[in-house]
C-alpha cells in the first residue's frame, strides 16, 4: 500500500495487535462518545464503537484507509461470531479524526467491503455504526455534508447486504409519517422546503418580470400614424407622373401610369427597395427609381430592371372612397411576383 511512509507500517502493526486483543476482550462501555452525536436519538441501536487505536494518530486519508482495510481483512477471522453490539468493524475513526467528507466516505466504503465478507449481522452493525461515525466527525460541517455521508452509508448497506432495519435518516422519518397527515398539509410541507420555495419564488418573480415586459409591448400612446390616410382626388395625379408628396412623411409614391399591363391605373408604391431596404430616389429625367445603396433600378411602374433587386417594388392598398378621395392603406401589401397586383385593392382604375 503506502510503502513510502514508515509510520503506516507501524500503525498497521499496532492495529493488528489491538484488534486481536479486542476480539477476545470484552467490549468497553458502549457509546461513550454519544455526547458528540447531536441527532443520535433517531439512531436505531446503540452500537458500541470500539475505540481501537486511541494511541495511533494517522495523519491523512491514506493512513486511515490503510488501517481500516487491514482491519477488514482481519475481521472475518476475528469476528466471525460477533455479538451485535460488539462493534467488530471497530473503526479507528473516533480516534483518527477524519478531516472531511471524503475521509468519512472512504472509511465507510472500506467498512462496507469488509462487512460484505462477514455475516449480514455484522453488516447491519456496520450500518448502525456508519451514521454514528459520520456524525461526530462532521459535527462542524454543514448539514448537506452530513446527509451525504449518511446516504453513502445506506448505499453501502444496500449493496452489500440487506439490513434488518432501515437506517433512520431525517427524510425517512418524514416519509414514515406521511400517511397520518392530510394531503394539503403534506403539499404545504413539500412546498415549504427551501429547495422548492426558492424555485417557486424565482419563477414567480420571473413571471412578474415577464408580465411587466409584456406590458411595454402595449404602450399607452402610439406615435405611429394610422395606416389608412387620404391623399386627394384622382385629378391630383396626372397620367405618367410619380407624386413624391407622401414619400417623406408616409413612405409611398403615388403613381399614375399605363405602362403595366396597358391599363390606365393609379396605385401606391412603397418606397422601400426590395434588395436591402434603402429608400430609392425617383429620377424624373430618367423616368426611373434608383437606389443609392447598391444601384438597383426600377421602371416607373415599379418593375425592377437593373442592379441587384430581385423583385419589383411592393404596392400598398389604394381605394377610391365614397367621397371621391383616394385612400391609401399601408397595412396591405401586394407583391408582383406572387401575382398579387391583380388584386382590385391594389390599384384604382382611371376612366
Amino acid at each position, binding site marked *: 500500500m503506502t510503502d513510502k511512509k514508515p509510520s503506516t507500517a507501524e500503525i498497521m502493526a499496532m492495529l493488528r495487535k489491538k484488534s486481536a486483543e479486542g476480539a477476545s476482550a470484552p467490549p468497553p462501555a458502549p457509546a461513550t462518545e454519544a455526547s458528540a452525536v447531536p441527532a443520535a436519538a433517531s439512531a436505531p441501536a446503540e452500537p458500541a464503537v470500539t475505540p481501537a487505536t486511541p494511541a495511533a494518530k494517522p495523519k491523512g486519508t491514506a493512513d486511515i484507509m490503510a488501517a481500516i482495510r487491514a482491519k477488514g481483512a482481519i475481521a472475518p477471522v476475528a469476528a466471525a461470531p460477533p455479538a451485535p453490539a460488539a462493534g467488530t468493524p471497530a473503526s479507528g475513526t473516533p480516534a483518527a479524526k477524519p478531516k472531511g467528507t471524503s475521509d468519512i466516505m472512504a472509511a465507510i466504503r472500506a467498512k462496507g467491503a469488509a462487512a460484505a465478507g462477514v455475516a449480514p449481522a455484522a453488516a447491519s452493525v456496520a450500518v448502525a455504526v456508519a451514521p454514528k461515525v459520520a456524525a461526530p466527525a462532521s459535527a462542524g460541517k454543514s448539514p448537506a455534508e452530513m446527509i451525504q455521508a449518511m446516504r453513502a452509508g445506506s448505499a453501502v448497506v444496500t449493496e452489500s447486504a440487506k439490513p434488518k432495519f432501515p437506517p433512520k435518516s431525517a427524510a425517512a422519518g418524514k416519509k414514515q409519517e406521511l400517511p397520518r397527515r392530510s394531503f394539503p398539509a403534506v403539499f404545504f410541507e413539500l412546498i415549504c422546503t427551501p429547495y422548492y420555495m426558492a424555485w417557486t419564488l424565482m419563477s414567480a418573480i420571473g413571471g412578474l418580470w415577464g408580465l411587466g415586459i409584456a406590458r411595454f409591448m402595449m404602450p399607452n400612446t402610439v406615435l405611429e400614424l394610422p395606416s389608412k390616410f387620404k391623399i386627394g382626388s384622382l385629378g391630383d395625379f396626372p397620367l405618367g407622373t410619380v407624386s413624391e408628396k407622401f*414619400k*417623406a*412623411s*408616409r*413612405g409611398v409614391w403615388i403613381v399614375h401610369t399605363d405602362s403595366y399591363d396597358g391599363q390606365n391605373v393609379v396605385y401606391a408604391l412603397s*418606397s422601400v427597395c426590395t*434588395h*436591402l431596404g*434603402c*429608400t*430609392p*430616389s425617383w*429620377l424624373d*429625367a*430618367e423616368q426611373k427609381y*434608383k*437606389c*443609392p*445603396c*447598391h*444601384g438597383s*433600378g426600377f421602371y416607373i411602374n415599379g418593375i425592377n*430592371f*437593373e*442592379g*441587384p433587386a*430581385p*423583385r419589383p417594388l411592393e404596392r400598398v392598398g389604394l381605394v377610391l372612397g365614397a367621397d371621391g378621395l383616394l385612400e391609401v392603406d399601408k397595412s396591405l401589401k401586394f407583391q408582383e*411576383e*406572387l*401575382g*398579387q397586383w391583380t388584386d382590385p385593392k391594389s390599384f384604382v382604375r382611371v376612366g
Partner: protein
Amino acid sequence: MLLFLANIGWTMRSYKRDGYYESVLGFQHIPKATVWAFYAAFLMLLAVTHLTSRSAPEEFLLRLPEWFKLSVDVIFRDARIYFGLSVAAFVGMIVWREFLTRDTVGWILFNVGCLFLGLSMTDYDFRQIVGKPDNVPIVGMLFIGGYFTWLYFKKAVDNDRRVAEGRPLAEQELKEQVLVWPDLVYTEMLCMILLTALLIVWGVFLQAPLEEPGQAVKTPNPSKAPWYFLGLQEMLVYFDPWLAGVVLPLVIVQGLMAIPYIDFNKKGNGYYSFADRKFSVIIFLFGFIPLWVGMIVLGTFIRGPNWNMFGLYEFWDVHKLEVLNNRNLSEIIWVVNLEQPLPKPDPASGLISQCLAIFMREGVGILMVIGYFMALPNLMALTFLRKFYVRMGVIRYMVLANLLLFMALLPIKMVLRWAFNLKYIVAIPEWFFNI
C-alpha cells in the same frame, strides 16, 4: 475652404520634398544621386514657389495633363477594366517580385504614388472625394498596406534567394541577438509618442464626419457602408442580400478560422518565404488585395451617386445615366433563346405544382449551382489539386475546395454580370432565394 485644400496640396508637396531630400543623402553612387538631386531640387523649387505665392490648387504650376485624367477616368469608371487591371497588377506583383522589391524600385513606386496623389489633389473633383474626412484613413491604408506587402515580398525574396544559394535564413543569422533594451523599448516609446501626436493633430484638424440626423424615408445618395465594409457592399451589388450579407461573410470568417486546420505545409514557419508557400500566399493575397482592398477602393473612390461608377477626376453627377439593364438566367433561356414566356407558378395551385413550375423555370441555374459545388471539387481533385487531395484526405480537401469555390464566386458573378448582364443564376423571388 479652398485655402485649406490648398494647404493640403502644399503639405503634400513639402512632404515629398523632404522625402526626396533624404533619399538623395542615402544614395552614395554619384551618377544616380545626381538624378535624384535634380529631381529633388526641382520639387523643392516647386514647393517653395507654392509656399511663397499662395494660390488656388487649380493654378499650381505642375498639374495633371488632361489626357492623363481622361484615360484614368476611362479606366476607373468601368468596373471591367478596373477589376481586370487590378488582377493584372496582382499577377505582375507576384511575377516580377524580384525586380519590384529592390530598394530603388520601391522608392520610385512610393514617389510615383505620392506624386500621383499630390498632383491629383490639383483636380477639384478628386479633392472633393479624397479630401473628405471619411476617406483620409483609406488613403493612409493604401500606403501602409502597399508598404507592408512590399516589405513582405522583399524579405521573402531575400530568404528564397538565401535558400537557393544554401545560405542560412535571415531570421537564423540574427537568432542570437535579442535587442530589447534599449533598442526595442526605445522604438516602442517613440512609436507611441509619434502616433499619439498624429492622432491629436488628426483629431484637431479633420473634423469628425457627422451628418444630419437619420430619417427612415430619406437615404443619403450615395449611401456608403463604413469603409471596412465596402467590400461587402460591393458584393451586395452582385448577390442577394442573404447571400452577400449573411452567408458569404460567415464563410469568409469560418474560412479564415479553418486555415490552420487546412494548411498542411510545415515550411515557411517563423520566417518570410514565398517559394515555400506559393499556394497559400497567392490565395490569401488574391482574396485580400483584389477582392477586399480593391473593393474598398472601388467603393470609396469610384462609387458615386446612385451607386454608379465614376472616374477619379469625374464630377459626381446625380443624373449620370448608365445602362445597367440585367436579366436572370431563366429569362435569358426562356425569353431570349426559346422565345417563350417564363413559366409562372400559379399561386392558387398546390405546393408541388408550384415547385415544379419554379424548377421548370430555374432548373438550368439550379443544376449549374449544384454542379459547381458538387462536381467541381472532384474535377479539381483529379486535375490540378491532385497533390492536395492525396495529402489532405477527403474531408479537409472538400473544405478547402469549397472555400476556394466560394471565394471564386464573387469574381465569377462579377464577370457574368459584366459580360452577359446576368442578374441571378437562380432567381426564385417567391421564396426570397436568389443566387
